[in-house]
């Protein structure tokens, strides 16, 4: 079966700016894939290229196995949910949802039927006659989604669809989108720069950085086996510290970090200097001086966040480690001396770049 979307060495330049640098990617049918990355890394550009709103300088774009590189936006089997929703302000909710169907030649009664159906599905039955300006932000967002999915496109594109909503609503709507995508087995490409959102709903995440794909994999894989310093830092927080790989043994490596000698999966790293990504909750703190199996540090700053404590711990007066501790009952005061041990689950070796 052909991929829903495929990029073959796609490059896009805006004047002197290279927005995408020879990107190749595939998206399988029926999956929700997230594009994640810092501002300006080219996420929106990927979507606009798929939609046909821009044309690449090099490379080919395939949708459903068909080369659509030169085809106009209106001739592509996609639809898009815009960050601003882009609801037509002079049309009612129903007219907005019917618009794409009518443009595609669906007869009016049939179009109205389908649109009403989809509006009910997103929980907006009874709102058909309203104008977009008479809806709340969350309702507008759902109209935009209904308008896009009613066309049953090969790919559904979302460009930061939740960024105009407040934090509570975001969480609810993102679950709704995920449910809808799974129940209709849609293929969706979803842009966000909220890593929580990406981890929560994706089948697969493409992390982008500086016009390239930095890593591609399931949420779990990205979190547990970041391929680079950048990815480790971007997905969940991580303390990146220099380490020494002493020797390899099958799939594992023996890694030296200060007093510790750890045995971890090596992910293709070679013996010699490397980096270690340590998740904040993988560092376990105990008050008092360190013994031979732990690392000594001093609390530099402490913050109480209700559900957990955040600490900055300085080691040997130079490296600052970020630590999250679930113990809020007996917090450690700033200046206290602590002994740190490592929980191996939250530690990953990163190959030297």
């Amino acid at each position, binding site marked *: 079966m052909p991929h829903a979307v495929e990029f073959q060495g796609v490059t896009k330049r805006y004047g002197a700016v290279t927005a995408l640098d020879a990107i190749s990617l595939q998206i399988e049918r029926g999956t929700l894939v997230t594009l994640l990355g810092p501002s300006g890394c080219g996420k929106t550009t990927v979507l606009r290229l798929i939609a046909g709103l821009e044309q690449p300088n090099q490379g080919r774009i395939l949708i459903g196995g068909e080369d659509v590189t030169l085809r106009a936006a*209106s001739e*592509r089997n996609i639809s898009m949910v815009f960050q601003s929703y882009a609801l037509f302000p002079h049309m009612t909710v129903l007219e907005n949802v019917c618009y794409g169907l009518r443009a595609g030649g669906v007869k009016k009664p049939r179009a109205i039927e389908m649109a009403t159906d989809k509006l009910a599905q997103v929980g907006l039955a009874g709102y058909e006659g309203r104008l977009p300006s008479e809806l709340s932000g969350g309702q507008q967002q759902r109209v935009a989604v209904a308008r896009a999915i009613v066309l049953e496109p090969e790919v559904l594109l979302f460009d930061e669809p939740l960024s105009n909503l407040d934090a509570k609503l975001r969480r609810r709507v993102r679950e709704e989108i995920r449910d809808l995508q799974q129940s209709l087995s849609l293929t969706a490409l979803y842009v966000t720069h909220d890593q929580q959102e990406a981890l929560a709903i994706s089948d697969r995440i493409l992390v982008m950085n500086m016009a390239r794909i930095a890593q591609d994999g399931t949420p779990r894989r990205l979190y547990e086996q970041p391929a680079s310093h950048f990815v480790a830092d971007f997905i969940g927080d991580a303390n990146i510290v220099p380490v020494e790989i002493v020797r390899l043994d099958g799939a594992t490596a023996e890694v030296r970090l200060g007093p510790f000698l750890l045995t971890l999966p090596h992910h293709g790293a070679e013996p010699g200097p490397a980096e270690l990504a340590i998740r904040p909750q993988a560092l376990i703190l105990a008050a008092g001086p360190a013994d031979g199996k732990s690392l000594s540090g001093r609390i530099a700053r402490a913050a109480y966040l209700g559900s957990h404590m955040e600490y900055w711990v300085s080691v040997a007066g130079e490296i600052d480690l970020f630590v999250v501790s679930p113990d809020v009952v007996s917090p450690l005061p700033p200046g206290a001396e602590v002994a740190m041990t490592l929980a191996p689950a939250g530690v990953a070796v990163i190959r030297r770049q």
Partner: protein
Amino acid sequence: MVAWGALALVPWYALGGMPRGVPAWPAAMQALVGERPWLIPVLLALLPATWAVIGPARPRLLVWSAVAGIAWIAVEGFGILHHGWGFEALATLTGSPGPTQPGLGWGAMIHVLALTMLIAHGLARQGVCRGDVFVVGALLLVVGLIVLFVIYPALCILSSALRDNDGGFAPTLFAAKLFGRPIWGLDCLFGPQACGTAWNTVAVASIVGVATTLIGLAFALLALRTRMPMKPLVAFLSVLPIITPPFVIGLALILLFGRSGAVTIWVADLLHLPRTRWIYGITGITLAQVLAFTPISFLVMIGVLQGVAPSLEEAAQTLRAGRWRTFRTITWPLIRPGLANAFLIAFIESMADFANPLMIGGNFTVLATDIFFAVVGTTHDQGRAAVLALVLLTFTLTAFQAQRAWVGRRSYATMGGKGAAGRAAALPGGLHVLSYVAVVPYLLLTIAVYGTIMVGGFVVSIGRDNTPTLRHLMTAFSVEHGVGGWFLSGSAWNSLITTFEIALIAMPFTAAIGIVTAWLLDRQRFAGQKSFEFLAMMSFAIPGTVVGVSYILAFNVPPLALTGTGAIIAIAFAFRNMPVGIRAGLANLSQIDRSLDEASLTLGARSFRTLRLVILPMLRPAVTTALVYSFVRAVTAVSAVIFLVTGEYQLATVYIVGRADVGDYGVAIVYSAVLIVLMLLILLVIQLAVGVKRPGARPASGAGAVTPMAIVQG
């Protein structure tokens, strides 16, 4: 594919069924019968095109054959005129006067149109403009029309300037004319003789530019930085230049300050001074133009001054700068580019102004009037008119280029537009007084001018005999009851009705071409966009007189013989007022978020459907503006059409100028007043209609009504 078939059929119908030229025979038959064999290539060019359509997709072939078809029509059109060969070389070559043919007709027009659409299809197939046939077609059409009705006439001026009056090529004569004393002479610096017209024109334009800019700035400062009631002032000053036919101010000045003007008589009686003709000449022209163009400068300066974020001035004041210092170091540098812009606009307007110098210029000639007299005067020297037009065109286009460069690069307006909160700095005291000194005389004169026009038509002879009378009104606008029922017996009805008819016909075309151009400029990206924009806006900078001359030169003879018809007047209106539609469209489009178009495209609607269902409904304010302003401007225009009117197609403004010329001021004033009131009424009605049900009033679209500001300068 269905669309392909339909489009391919059109040219056949056009050729087969439409009359072309005077003998009402279709071109196909004429060609085949052998009477006009030069039409055969037109048919031949269509063959490969048709094959390219029906057979395997061959976009390149399609484009080239259609281009060849159009090119051949152009070649044979210019090659064979109604009196024989169009080029002497051809005559010598064949040794005979050659065949004849009349001007092109409807058939040819539709044929060329269809060929253009074929080219569009061919280009779109090759991926031009993201493969969008509608965009390519619209683009080709607009460019074609601009080339035909703006560029080609302008080139005709050049070609005419290079020939003597018998049509021979005469570069030395051209040089003599171009650099001659009548244009460039500097005699006035050394003696009593007059200077060259070019210097006259530049002098007047510079004075007017500086004066209007300063008065406009003074107005804007008072309006924005003091408690002067601003809204009525803005409304008042923004409608004035639109509804006032250009000669009205000159006319009123004559009635006030002329040798037998009201003020002149009053002052003469009071002080026992001799009455003089001081107003005629550079003084009068300058005065009239300053009065006429200050509102435009004011509107520009209001925009510029509003663009200076108050927070900047507040910041300066918290940094211990006093009011003067704030103005001098912050406000002034920020508005300087705006001042240059206002100056250049007034400069161009002044150069292009024809009616005021005609009315009040006396013996002082400027280029615009000189051109007119070269054409209609006793000398009847078209070559000279062409040379003068060339000089004038060079001036205005240079100024236009400079203005665009300034506005493009140096405008700081809208910088920090978000910081609109905060109070603007108060005006320094000295500046405050200075502004009043500039503004008050202007306002008094303006009131006097419009008062004269409104009242002057209802007295026997203003100044000399102020007995109220309806005589002039009756002469112009009487309605009588005769044998055939009511009929319009006044002398002005004919021209008024013709004017309205032609303006109404031109109105939808002006708006349509303007809005489509704006859409192409704002929403599409294609190679050569900058030059396209320049072409489209250029007609703003072509003085009306130049347009008039160029139309005479270009369309007097086949292949496009249009002079003497109403059509050429409508065309002149459409292309002169096109920038109005473009500006209105651009201003409105910039308020409509681009993601709306994109959403429509991704939902499977093509660009035409998107334009029709999504963009146009939200562009209603711009469309209304473009329609109304193009109508009003057409009704009040003089300079271009004065060359194009005929007995059959007499226009209101030209009629008034004619009446004033023979000293029949009563009728001229009454008619002017009627025009002004009518235009004002139309604007008011539209404003009410649009204001009540403003289509873009919903917050999501944010498309507000288009202000006159947007029209004056984008």
